[in-house]
């Protein structure tokens, strides 16, 4: 009986991997051949709304002035703009930098949080209460927005169907080491192909919590960000979709970010993402299926997107299952399903975006040398398998124990303070 259960589980793993293999293959083909769905900046270029730009910051003195300089330099009319950098319990010189900028620019209105729980979702909830704009844009503190990014993101809200917008994230510190180069590949696969294909196919494009924005009234209607969920971006994505709103993805709206430069920081980041995303999966799995606003294919894609951080945990258990079957004398079974296992293994080579998807993304991006790093994704695959599984288990324990969730900020590596 036990062996039968183990065999059935292997079948389940193969099925899950095959589903994701198909999904990513469709995305890759759509992106490289399919008709590309435009973003809005060619269609609308005036009638700009009043924008409130939120920048959550916790001990960000290394990067605070960079993003504020970039945003004050934006080509958005300043009479329709307010920048609200949120000093979230900082213990370094962040508050001083914010106050200096506030003194120089009247549209910069810092919010200093010294009470209440720390964390991005809490900071955003507090800041939204003091915003004047109906459209809220959010940037993480390590981002370096180009001049046009506010205008480009804002125009999509002229479409009454759009609840949120998301731009493309591009690493700025790619050349630092192998990790940053691998993360650059991963981002490329994730945005150039994955997000754009989902946008093309009218599936569930994801709001990523930065280089993006949303309508304030929608967030209010949904009750704001849940302090217990540490990936407020995924939560908002699904809140919007199940209530009939869409996320517009803007591949053309690129913004630089700083990716982790060491594996320890990356492990914490990916574990946090996996934990938060899985929290959202537990909460929105049923609502996505039951939503009357989603089409069948949106529901399927929504479920697959929700479950994406569960896949490494499923695969991890599958490996343990295979080892058990091996010692139980079932090597013939492993040989029998070998062709299927091997084929779908292709999908796992490259974390969540398989290697061919990342290859196509880099090819479309016009890269040459970084494509040569594709085989190194094997490190990322094992690494992600390990830490994403831990994040998944964290989320499971969050549910079981109802323990308090603490938000951990990603370490910054910016060298220059100029």
């Amino acid at each position, binding site marked *: 009986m036990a062996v039968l259960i183990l065999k059935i589980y292997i079948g389940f793993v193969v099925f899950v991997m095959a589903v994701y293999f198909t999904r990513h293959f469709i995305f890759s083909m759509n*992106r490289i051949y399919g008709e590309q769905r435009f973003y809005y900046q*060619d269609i609308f270029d005036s009638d700009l709304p009043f924008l409130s730009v939120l920048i959550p910051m916790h001990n960000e003195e290394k990067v605070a002035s960079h993003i504020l300089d970039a945003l004050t330099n934006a080509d958005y009319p300043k009479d329709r703009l307010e920048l609200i950098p949120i000093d979230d319990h900082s213990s370094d010189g962040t508050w001083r930098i914010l106050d200096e900028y506030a003194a120089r620019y009247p549209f910069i209105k810092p919010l200093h949080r010294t009470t209440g729980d720390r964390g991005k979702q809490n900071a955003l909830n507090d800041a939204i209460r003091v915003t004047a704009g109906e459209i809220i844009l959010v940037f993480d503190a390590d981002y370096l927005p180009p001049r046009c990014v506010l205008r480009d993101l804002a125009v999509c809200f002229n479409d009454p169907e759009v609840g949120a917008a998301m731009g493309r994230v591009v690493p700025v510190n790619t050349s630092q080491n192998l990790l940053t180069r691998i993360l650059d590949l991963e981002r490329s696969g994730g945005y150039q192909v994955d997000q754009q294909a989902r946008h093309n196919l009218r599936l569930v494009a994801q709001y990523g919590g930065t280089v993006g924005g949303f309508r304030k009234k929608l967030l209010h209607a949904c009750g704001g960000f849940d302090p217990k969920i540490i990936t407020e971006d995924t939560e908002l994505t699904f809140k919007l979709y199940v209530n009939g709103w869409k996320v517009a993805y803007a591949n*053309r709206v690129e913004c630089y970010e700083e990716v982790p430069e060491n594996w320890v920081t990356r492990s914490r980041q990916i574990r946090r993402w996996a934990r938060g995303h899985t929290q959202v999966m537990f909460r929105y799995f049923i609502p996505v299926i039951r939503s009357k606003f989603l089409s069948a294919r949106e529901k399927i894609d929504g479920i697959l997107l929700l479950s994406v951080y569960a896949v490494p945990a499923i695969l991890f258990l599958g490996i343990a299952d295979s080892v058990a079957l091996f010692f139980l004398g079932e*090597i013939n079974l492993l040989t029998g399903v070998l062709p299927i296992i091997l084929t779908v293994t292709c999908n796992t080579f490259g974390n969540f975006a398989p290697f061919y998807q990342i290859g196509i993304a880099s090819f479309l991006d016009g890269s040459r040398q970084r494509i040569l790093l594709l085989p190194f994704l094997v490190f990322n695959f094992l690494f992600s398998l*390990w830490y994403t599984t831990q994040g998944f288990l964290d989320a499971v324990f969050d549910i079981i124990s109802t323990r308090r969730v603490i938000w951990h900020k990603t370490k910054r590596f910016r060298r220059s303070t100029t």
Partner: protein
Amino acid sequence: MPRQHNESQSGIAKELVYYHRSYRKIPVPEKRHLIPFLCLIIIIEVLLYLFSPDLNYLVNRYTQKILVRSVPFENVNMIWTEFLWRSITVLNVPGSYPAMWFTMINLIVALLIVFIIPQTKTPKPITVALTLMSLIHLVSALFFLFVPDRFPYQVIDFSTTYVVMVMVTWFLIPVVYGFILYPLPSSVFSKIFMIVFTLTFSSAFNIFRYSIFLYLINVHSFIFMAILFFCFGFLLDMIFIVGFYSFYLSLLSGKLQHDMDVWQWLY
């Protein structure tokens, strides 16, 4: 004269300024190319079906030659078996059960790696890879510590599984490459060359891997069978499949970057 100057400037600008990468794509390959490409893949698969037993025999012969340097010749036997209705050869060598002290050493080493490596400054991906491998080896060591007599395999079972895995990989290479190379705007010849080259590399690589696997099991016992099967099997094949693909794609990307006939921009 100013007009000429402007034209010249315009010419330079056209030479240097390219459209943005955001929405560019490539033309769908013409359907008339699909059938010949599919036919070529099928021909390769048929050829593989016909000649893979011979190729496998060749691999086994060379493996045997390498093995006899460290294993007595009479102990390295070539055995015939069936796979996909064809007779194929596999190598058999005497296997051995690990001694208790050897199992204990393996157990301790695996435990040390699992618990100590994460505390060191070893890069995390290496730590994770070593930890995963050590966990599998730990299970193996525990198995041979407590129930060695229930180990269900002989070397011939492992060897047969290995050879089948290699042959399945050979059959998969044209299929996987067919899927991922067909969409790319390059010649059919170069794609077929990639497939043939990868198959050739795989054959050569397997001589060395098979030799090492059988040597380890022969000399150092069955305790290594699990780790070899799970960690150094198809995962290594995937690395070189992806490696060759990345090399091909990189060359193609460099070649096509400024070819305005290849790219289509909608933005």
